[in-house]
């Protein structure tokens, strides 16, 4: 029994890991295709049909490029930077419930790697750790532009973590649990999705998610108009590739997290009214969940090619003077509404 349990978790981990990497790979192509679409041009279309082999070519090219470590760089930390970035990006998906239970030969298989007591906080912790990759890489490069990028990344991520955490507290007041598996299970159907009770919280959360992923309009750490390439100015070859990859994985994981927390995860409308068996509900649920994730990834890219970059003081003002007070107001509002509901409508 124990052996089967370990084997099933191992398979799940490998599958999740592979899917994450493949999605991150094809996000690069999707980004360029969408950019092309929005700017009325084709985007990459030479490698394979519709440019489908482009990510493979890019990856291969990254591996064969010359690897340069600057003479003044701190060698260990210079290598450790991208390593931390990619590891933290990959382990953050461990607590996300990908679907309901599958029943295979009478055995119930959970499609979640670990349903820990503190699921939401685990993701937060790992995200908080991710900034070390950027900071160490930027500092170890021994380059003023890199250092500026690293410092911007650190202060930006700390500022927006506060807003994100506060917006999440209001959500947790509604769900009354930190377990991601249970949060999704509560949102069955369509009307129970958390977005209907926490619209403001979601708006704050998605804004902070953009900042945490260093995406436009908050990509100040790699702002090329001011800082050459920001924290990865000195990086070449696959080490640069790992930084880029971790950015896309972060985008995928935060999309998954938003779909889980606010948009019902694997739940879809009328899921129990169609007379489907448990396994079919699970399979369709997984597909629906990925559809939601792709929707968010598209939204990330749509914003990138629509909005210009913020100025750094505007970024800080938005974080501290608008998002945090709004998030606190949201907490108070949620508390008051919960209290009224419990007292008068029980």
């Amino acid at each position: 029994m124990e052996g089967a349990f370990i084997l099933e978790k191992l398979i799940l981990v490998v599958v999740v890991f592979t899917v994450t990497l493949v999605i991150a790979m094809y996000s690069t192509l999707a980004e360029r295709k969408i950019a092309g679409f929005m700017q009325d041009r084709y985007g990459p279309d030479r490698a394979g049909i519709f440019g489908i082999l482009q990510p493979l070519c890019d990856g291969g090219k990254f591996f064969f490029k010359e690897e340069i470590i600057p003479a003044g760089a701190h060698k260990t930390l210079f290598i450790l930077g991208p390593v931390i970035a990619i590891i933290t990006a990959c382990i953050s998906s461990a607590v996300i419930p990908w679907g309901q239970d599958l029943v295979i030969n009478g055995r119930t298989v959970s499609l979640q790697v670990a349903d820990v007591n503190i699921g939401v906080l685990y993701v937060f912790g790992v995200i908080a750790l991710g900034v070390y990759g950027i900071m160490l890489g930027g500092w170890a490069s021994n380059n003023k532009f890199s250092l500026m990028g690293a410092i911007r990344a650190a202060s930006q991520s700390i500022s927006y973590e506060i807003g994100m955490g506060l917006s999440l507290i209001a959500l947790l007041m509604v769900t009354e649990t930190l377990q991601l598996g249970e949060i999704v299970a509560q949102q069955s159907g369509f009307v129970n999705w958390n977005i209907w009770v926490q619209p403001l919280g979601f708006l704050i959360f998605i804004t902070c998610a953009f900042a945490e992923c260093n995406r436009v309009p908050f990509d100040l750490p790699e702002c090329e108009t001011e800082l050459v390439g920001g924290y990865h100015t000195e990086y070449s070859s696959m080490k640069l590739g790992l930084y880029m990859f971790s950015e896309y994985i972060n985008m995928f994981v935060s999309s998954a997290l938003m779909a889980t927390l606010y948009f019902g995860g694997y739940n879809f409308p009328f899921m129990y009214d169609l007379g489907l068996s448990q396994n079919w509900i699970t399979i369709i649920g997984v597909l629906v969940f990925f559809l939601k994730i792709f929707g968010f990834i598209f939204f990330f890219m749509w914003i990138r090619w629509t909005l210009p970059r913020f100025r750094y003081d505007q970024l800080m003002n938005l974080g501290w003077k608008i998002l945090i007070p709004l998030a606190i107001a949201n907490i108070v509002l949620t508390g008051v509404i919960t209290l009224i509901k419990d007292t008068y409508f029980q």
Partner: protein
Amino acid sequence: MGIFYFVAFLSVFFALMTIFTKNPVHSVLYLVITFFTFTVHYILLNAQFLAVVNFIVYMGAIMVLFLFVLMLLNLNKDTEPMKSTLVKVMGAIAGMCLLATFLGAFRVLEGQNEYVTGNTDVGLVKNLGKVLFDEFLLPFELSSILLLTAMIGAILLAKKETKQG
């Protein structure tokens, strides 16, 4: 118990490395690893919430700020301020006093408090919340006021003086 001794050894080892490395950035990184071993200790004690909060607050926020300041200052051997012997001696004495206080406190507490012995589920979110907002409400609120005061003080100190008088 074996895991505990191993993790405890790592904690002490990395804490010592924090003190003995010359490079301030390395020192901070060793401190980060030390905090990580503390997180493992909390998990071993079945205190999941404390573990993850320690992880987020200390490793994810406070140490990042430490690193931030060190990187901005770019300290190295030439710019390191030399402390006089008197300061070093005073530091050693103060450290010893702290150690003696802790030892005394732990000896008194030993085997008396139900939160020190027994009741291993108190670290889970639900139980911890109930204890904090019921039994220890006053100390909890007082400590939050203390933190708020410190925050306001820091903002006041950092704020530019616009007008005199």
